[in-house]
């Protein structure tokens, strides 16, 4: 591959392995480029790559990084696919150039045995002869094919898919074409005979009847075609709805979450409303609450002032008492303690008195106690209370807390709505109703088709009789071609039915063998492809169980693909993308064992969630021929290297 999708520059993958070690492992995480390798193979072979039923446009096949680094210069994108069969070697290269982000039409070159290139127009025919596109998804078993098979194995509504694949694989459309040709020729001969017999009265009468019945038959065919078209449309619609149901469990879980969030939000809104009303009532009762902080601070200040004033007053009184006593001593009054008079130490007393007087003068005058007390007494007048304020604060906290929870719930609701929208906002009830209605339509159409087909058979039988009758009016040599064609038509029709049954049995036989190798539940003896091409699990008593688990579905899908490949080809390869998802360890080991013993060259593309080299390699024994590591260098560049080291 050169500059193909995630792979910048040239990457080479060698698929050659010894018969004794036929497995190739591709190890890499999701999004690193595992699927791209399959896409490269498909693009080289068939010239298109499909993703989610849409063809990927060519400008998306070129590596973006190479394009950026080229800065407008030409970038070559190509995939070369080399292979060989018993007789020849083939080298197929598909390429295109991109200049200034504009991709040129791709070219394809096929060389057989290194000779000159085959004519470009013949390449698709040659490739299809070797590896038919319609069966290619059996060996390029990628995620999308796997999804299709998982669904087809688990939903009878998708069984038509299996039928189409089996029939396409076994060239049944080609046999049908042949039958149609025979019928056309037979009718042409019949018409020619009619013309030749137009003079014959009896034959004329028969011819008249024949024309009438033929018209009725044509009308019936038209009815059948219309019903088949309707049935196909209904099938497509059912598949679409089943696809939506694929996301159903996720959607249902999401809708449950949304319901829960909505219920929580409702409760929160109710609480929020209630608390706000309580707060409003409290404010009506205590209009001062908005100023409560200031009032509280004022009250505390006043109380502090009163306390300070009280303390100052007490200190002043004590100092003044001391000063008065010292004055008395200075004025010759006896000492109030010892009762004596003394002139000694007068200076010291005077000094002490002076200090006390300074202390008294330093004492602040402050607010008179009476003033503060008077102001404090006014607080009860407007019902100021600490408890009411406390209650208001608590209510406010609750309102804010509930408001925050409500905001979170609203955000969750928005997130969940966005997720639901991303999932396509499946309306389960509507979907179920549509699905039921469609199944009813389908059943009615199947019944109508069956009736019409029976009518058509009857008409055809009448036509045959009349044609024979008319033909017998002619000499044997003239009606010979008609009789020959009539016989061949009959022979091919009965053969088609026998061939279909034989093929179905063959696919079922191979699928059952694979299924039994992989499945751990010993109660089953095989797989059964039902008359309408659904898949069921066969019990020893000949009865059958429907598929019950994802694991059973996965194993059945692998078994069916194995059966189809075995039926379609003698030898070959399979590229399986993430085959172990939804399988437990036991079934993984069984799939590994099947892969090693299948007789195919199996390439398994796996991520670390399903396979770890150190832990799981023993499951493959010595059957691993090559191991490739797929690594992403950045968003626009991956690389694939051989070897087990990271």
């Amino acid at each position: 591959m050169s500059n193909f999708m995630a792979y910048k520059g040239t990457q080479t993958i060698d698929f050659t392995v010894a018969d004794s070690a036929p497995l190739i492992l591709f190890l890499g995480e999701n999004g690193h480029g595992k699927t791209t390798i399959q896409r490269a193979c498909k693009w080289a072979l068939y010239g298109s790559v499909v993703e989610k039923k849409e063809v990927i446009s060519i400008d998306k096949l070129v590596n973006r990084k190479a394009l950026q680094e080229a800065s407008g210069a030409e970038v070559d994108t190509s995939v070369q696919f080399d292979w060989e069969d018993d007789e020849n070697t083939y080298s197929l290269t598909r390429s295109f150039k991109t200049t200034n982000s504009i991709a040129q039409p791709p070219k394809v070159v096929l060389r057989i045995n290194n000779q000159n290139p085959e004519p470009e127009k013949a390449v698709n025919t040659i490739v299809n002869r070797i590896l038919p596109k319609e069966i290619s998804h059996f060996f390029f078993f990628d995620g999308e094919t796997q999804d299709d098979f998982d669904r087809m194995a688990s939903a009878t509504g998708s069984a038509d898919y299996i039928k189409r694949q089996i029939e396409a694989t076994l060239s049944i459309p080609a046999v049908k074409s042949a039958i149609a040709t025979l019928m056309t020729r037979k009718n042409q001969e019949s018409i020619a005979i009619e013309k030749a017999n137009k003079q014959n009265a009896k034959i004329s009468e028969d011819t008249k009847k024949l024309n009438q019945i033929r018209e009725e038959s044509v009308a019936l065919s038209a009815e059948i075609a219309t019903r088949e078209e309707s049935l196909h449309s209904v099938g497509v619609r059912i598949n679409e709805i089943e696809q939506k149901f694929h996301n159903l469990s996720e959607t249902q879980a999401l809708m449950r979450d949304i319901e829960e969030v909505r219920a929580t939000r409702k409760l929160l809104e109710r609480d929020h409303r209630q608390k706000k009303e309580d707060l409003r009532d409290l404010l009506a009762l205590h209009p001062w609450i908005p100023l409560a902080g200031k009032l509280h601070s004022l009250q505390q200040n006043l109380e502090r002032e009163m306390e300070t004033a009280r303390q100052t007053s007490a200190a002043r009184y004590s100092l003044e008492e001391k000063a008065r006593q010292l004055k008395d001593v200075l004025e010759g009054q006896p000492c109030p303690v010892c009762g004596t008079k003394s002139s000694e130490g007068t200076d010291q007393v005077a000094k002490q008195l002076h200090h006390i007087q300074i202390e008294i003068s330093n004492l602040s005058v402050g607010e008179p106690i009476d003033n503060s007390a008077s102001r404090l007494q006014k607080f009860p007048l407007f019902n100021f209370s600490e408890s009411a304020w406390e209650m208001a604060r608590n209510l406010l906290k609750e309102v804010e807390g509930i408001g925050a929870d409500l905001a979170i719930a609203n955000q969750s609701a928005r997130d969940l709505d966005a997720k639901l929208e991303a999932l396509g906002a499946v309306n389960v009830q509507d979907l179920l109703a549509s699905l039921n209605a469609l199944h009813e339509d389908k059943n009615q159409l199947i019944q109508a088709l069956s009736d019409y087909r029976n009518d058509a058979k009857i008409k055809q039988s009448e036509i045959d009789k009349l044609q024979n009758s008319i033909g017998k009016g002619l000499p044997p040599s003239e009606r010979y071609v008609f009789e020959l064609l009539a016989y061949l038509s009959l022979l091919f029709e009965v053969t088609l039915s026998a061939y279909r049954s034989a093929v179905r049995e063959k696919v079922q036989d191979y699928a059952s063998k694979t299924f039994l190798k992989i499945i751990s539940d010993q109660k089953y003896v095989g797989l059964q492809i039902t008359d309408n091409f659904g898949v069921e699990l066969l019990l020893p008593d000949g009865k059958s169980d429907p598929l019950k688990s994802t694991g059973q579905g996965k194993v059945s899908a692998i078994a069916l693909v194995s059966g189809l490949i075995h039926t379609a080809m003698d030898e070959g390869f399979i590229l399986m993308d993430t085959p172990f998802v939804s399988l437990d360890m036991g079934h993984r080991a069984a799939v590994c064992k099947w892969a090693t013993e299948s007789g195919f060259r199996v390439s398994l593309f796996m991520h670390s969630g399903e396979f770890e080299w150190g832990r799981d390699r023993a499951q493959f024994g010595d059957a691993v021929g090559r191991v490739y590591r797929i690594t992403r260098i950045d968003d626009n560049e991956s690389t694939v290297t051989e070897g087990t080291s990271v």
Partner: protein
Amino acid sequence: MGAKAPMTKSNVAESYEILLTAIQHEHERLKKDPEGQPVSVVDVSPADIKALIDAIWKDRNESEEVRTRTFEIALQELLVKHQEAKG
């Protein structure tokens, strides 16, 4: 230079054999019970049938137009051969 891959021959030989066996078997069955069947049943040989099946198989993966043309040619050859044999 790319890689060499062991490749399927896309051989549906076994299916071809199943189809051929089925048609020869049905042909034998119809021959054994010819009541109501055209006399020409006996004129169709296993080789005639094989020629028609081969024509179907040869272009089975081609378009319907190509398939039909190939089959018509084989059928025409068979019809001419039988008409000539009848004189």
